């Protein structure tokens, strides 16, 4: 079992088996995105309070979810690096950080566009918005640290510890709306109760969530493959693979 896992995780075999997987997830992304956007914009009914403006939820909520989810994955990889010296996890953090930062930025921008007509302001320093902004800074900080420590020994451990410290922000982002008074409303789906969204509005949201996850997996595979190509650029198997193309 372990032997098989190590074999699958070796750069050469990973490069080979990840290729069809990447195209599969790219196809899934296109399918989910098409269905999700169509059903979100045309099939879901308008909200009783916010009218058609609520439809930005179909971008805002998946990107906000992904911003937390990606950081959780990075933290898990950081744990693998520090405790088990799992070098490949460093590649995952490197590939994931810009994606997580993009999702966070998207959540902040769409939230801002949503906030202006509904709340009456583009931005307010409430706990949810502020902690999400801190999350963006954490992502950017991880990226900056990685770049500045390039080619230094044990740089992956330093980055991993920074990622682990930043993890404190994740529960704060999620629970900020229940711990403090905020302008942002409470959780709609991720709570221990029935989602407070009508089902014909919920399905497009879940499909969009699947689309975002598929997109993330596609980009992760793509970026990891690129990183492997770069790291192994002097090895013979690369020459053989690229020779085929």
């Amino acid at each position, binding site marked *: 079992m372990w032997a098989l896992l190590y074999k699958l995780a070796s750069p050469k075999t990973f490069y080979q088996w990840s290729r069809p997987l990447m195209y599969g997830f790219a196809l899934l992304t296109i399918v989910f995105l098409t269905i999700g956007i169509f059903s979100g914009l045309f099939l879901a009914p308008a909200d009783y309070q916010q009218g058609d403006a609520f439809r930005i939820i179909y971008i805002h909520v998946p990107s906000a979810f992904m911003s937390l989810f990606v950081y959780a994955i990075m933290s898990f990889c950081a744990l693998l690096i520090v405790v088990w010296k799992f070098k490949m996890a460093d590649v995952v953090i490197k590939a994931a950080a810009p994606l997580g930062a993009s999702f966070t930025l998207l959540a902040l921008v769409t939230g801002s566009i949503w906030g202006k007509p509904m709340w*009456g302001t583009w931005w307010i320093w409430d706990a949810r918005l502020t902690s999400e902004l801190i999350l963006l800074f954490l992502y950017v900080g991880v990226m900056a640290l990685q770049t500045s420590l390039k080619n230094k020994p044990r740089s992956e451990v330093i980055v991993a510890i920074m990622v682990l410290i930043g993890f*404190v922000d994740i529960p704060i982002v999620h629970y900020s709306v229940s711990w403090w*008074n905020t302008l942002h409303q409470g959780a709609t789906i991720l709570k221990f109760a029935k989602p407070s969204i009508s089902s014909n509005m919920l399905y497009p949201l879940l499909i969009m969530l699947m689309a975002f996850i598929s997109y993330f997996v596609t980009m992760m595979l793509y970026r990891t493959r690129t990183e492997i190509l770069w790291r192994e650029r002097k090895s013979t198997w690369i020459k053989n693979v690229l020779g085929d193309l």
Partner: protein
Amino acid sequence: MTLHQRRKLYFIILMIFSITIATGLILFALRQNINLFYTPTQLVSGEAPQGRMIRIGGLVEKNSVVRSKTDLTVIFRLTDLDKAVEVRYQGILPDLFREGQGIVVQGKLNNQHQFIAEQVLAKHDANYMPSEVKAALKDRYKKDGYGS
């Protein structure tokens, strides 16, 4: 897991634990600054600072909104279903402003116990439903003898 790995794992757990405690204490100490608004009850009981710009959050009381006929001035009562405070605002209200809606106002309390708002923000809840469902729910409540 070797001894070395186990020690590292314990160290990481201890590190995350202590950072969580530290952050928790900081946030607990800052809780009044992190809370976005005071409630009308806090304002009435004197917990909110006087003569400073503050925010109050609550519901717009039913049948309390008075709009000026000549300008954009609007006066309404903001309640947390316990205590209420009168708010005066001059300007354009957000689309979601209506009676019974949760809102946050920013401004100062004047000597007549009237809150002079400089900004009115609307809160919306985490419920999303089509208007037909809302209408059906309303009918149901009326039949059962609740308010809407």
